[in-house]
């Protein structure tokens, strides 16, 4: 257990920034976000949660996979080797479009040079994450790290392996926090390289990994006094007290499976506007899109965040959309977090930060959704119930039930959303 004076925090971050980019929550005109920290910037820790988690620093909102250039047909010089191509395209290691030429097509067809995206990963220290934010990375690690025999994502992992997560435990959890409900806690250490707890005059810190220990080598740290350690434990316990457990995790996956066809999905999603706010502020949501962007003869293939509420997320070229109805898209998010992901990765895809509740334009409450869907009393279309809101949907619901019969059948029309 170490102790750092509150007043030494800037010096500590300064120390860290010698070897890594330091990221910390800062307040920009009332909006608290994780931003690159520079000397002189205040670290905002009074606000419990930044607007977004720090996920964009490991999994950026957009990044190029590869770059390419078509060479002009009229060009007399055609590169035969990667070295020649580099010269021809004026590719330098530092300059614009720099990086490695991974392939050169053979002449004389239309020349195409493909350049692998630069490995831009640099060491990062993210300070001021909350336990739920850090846990988000642990859950994404499984997806991008190839857990269970799947593929390994070099872009994510190159950044992830160079990142140190310095977590600060929560002192005043919000009413929307439910980390304890999903197996975490306001003082949880999962994913943290070091865990800081704020006490009146500073931080009690504990290294949990070698990366964390290295960060705590800063000379400003002293051994924590017994009183300080005790104060930290008390602060953690007090925070723990304040977080409620709003729904039962036990049996939730089975309940979601059982209620896939439930009319409750439509009722719960009524006020959803099908935007992507909940997924973009979420520390765990990781779905993305891949798109090519080219101008004239050069371009790049990039990935950018995408979300399952996007109406064109699953839209196929034929015009068919497996989730063209809002409630189906809505259902997917919760099912993904508490059923699909657990089935694949033996964990769950939610750390209970509550951002999706607070920043949803219509305040859709994941606790309520899981409470209803996980309670086991959710009714399916097959047995319409006396639940107050189910009456008027009966008509359209019949269409869906019919589809349920033939798994490969065509989607019945009139499913709530007209097709375009």
């Amino acid at each position, binding site marked *: 257990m170490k102790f750092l004076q509150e007043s030494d925090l800037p010096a500590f971050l300064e120390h860290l920034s010698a070897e890594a980019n330091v990221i910390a929550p800062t307040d920009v005109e009332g909006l608290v976000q994780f931003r690159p920290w520079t000397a002189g910037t205040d670290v905002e820790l009074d606000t419990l949660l930044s607007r977004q988690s720090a996920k964009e620093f490991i999994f950026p909102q957009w990044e190029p996979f590869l770059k390419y250039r*078509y060479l002009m047909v*009229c060009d007399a010089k055609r590169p035969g080797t990667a070295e020649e191509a580099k010269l021809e395209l004026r590719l330098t290691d530092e300059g614009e479009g720099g990086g490695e030429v991974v392939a050169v097509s053979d002449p004389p067809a*239309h020349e195409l040079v493909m350049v692998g995206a630069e490995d831009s990963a640099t060491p990062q220290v993210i300070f001021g994450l909350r336990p739920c934010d850090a846990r988000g990375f642990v859950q994404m690690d499984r997806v991008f790290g190839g857990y269970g025999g799947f593929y390994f994502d070099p872009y994510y992992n190159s950044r992830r392996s160079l990142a140190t997560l310095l977590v600060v435990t929560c002192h005043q959890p919000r009413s929307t926090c439910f980390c304890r409900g999903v197996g975490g806690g306001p003082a949880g250490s999962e994913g943290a390289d070091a865990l800081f707890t704020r006490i009146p005059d500073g931080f009690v810190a504990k290294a949990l990994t070698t990366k964390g220990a290295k960060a705590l080598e800063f000379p400003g740290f002293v051994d924590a006094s017994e009183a300080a350690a005790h104060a930290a434990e008390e602060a953690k316990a007090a925070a723990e007290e304040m977080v409620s457990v709003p729904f039962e995790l036990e049996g939730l996956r089975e309940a979601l499976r059982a209620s896939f066809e439930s009319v409750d999905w439509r009722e719960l999603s009524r006020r959803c506007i099908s935007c992507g706010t909940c997924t973009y502020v979420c520390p765990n949501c990781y779905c993305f899109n891949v798109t090519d962007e080219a101008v*004239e003869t050069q371009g790049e293939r990039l990935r950018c965040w995408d979300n399952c509420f996007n109406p064109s997320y699953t839209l196929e070229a034929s015009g068919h959309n497996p989730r063209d109805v809002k409630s189906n898209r809505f259902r997917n998010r919760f099912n993904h977090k508490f059923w699909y992901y657990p089935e694949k990765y033996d964990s769950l895809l939610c750390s209970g930060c509550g951002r999706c509740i607070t920043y949803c334009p219509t305040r859709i409450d994941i606790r309520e959704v899981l409470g209803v869907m996980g309670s086991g009393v959710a009714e399916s279309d097959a047995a319409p119930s006396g639940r107050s809101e189910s009456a008027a949907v009966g008509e359209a619901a019949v269409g869906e039930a019919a589809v349920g019969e033939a798994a490969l059948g065509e989607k019945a029309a009139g499913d709530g959303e007209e097709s375009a």
Partner: protein
Amino acid sequence: MTVVASSQQTQEAGSAALAEGAGPARPIKVVAILCNWCSYAGADGAGTARLVQPYGFRVVRVPCTGRVDPLLVLKAFEKGADGVLISGCHPGDCHYSEGNYYARRKFELLRRMVPHLGIEPERFRYTWVSASEAARWQEVVTTFLAGVAALGPREGRAL
């Protein structure tokens, strides 16, 4: 896939056209969107008549100014244009009867929005040049380019 013998020539032509009065930085880039029936013919006429024109602008020929979405203009600015000039048939003379009447409203709104985006008003102009008005075209394009050149390349832009 056909690779067009590309715009390199045009780009170089553009580079050569270091507009007078511009700062030392880079040459200005101006896009001129001309309707096929009037202004393009007018500009063509100016060329045929060997009227002296500045040459640091790129012409985009469109069927009708009514087709020009204000967003295309904003996209040009976003892509780094220093000025955008739109010219079509005089109101009343539209090849498609009323295309430029619709355009007029849209461009007027755009003209008023452009300064709001931190772009100097001189960088956008919409006007009318008929097929027979070669001299007017010469005047329009010369003044517009001079105005943009006086401001120089755009810097610190939001769009």
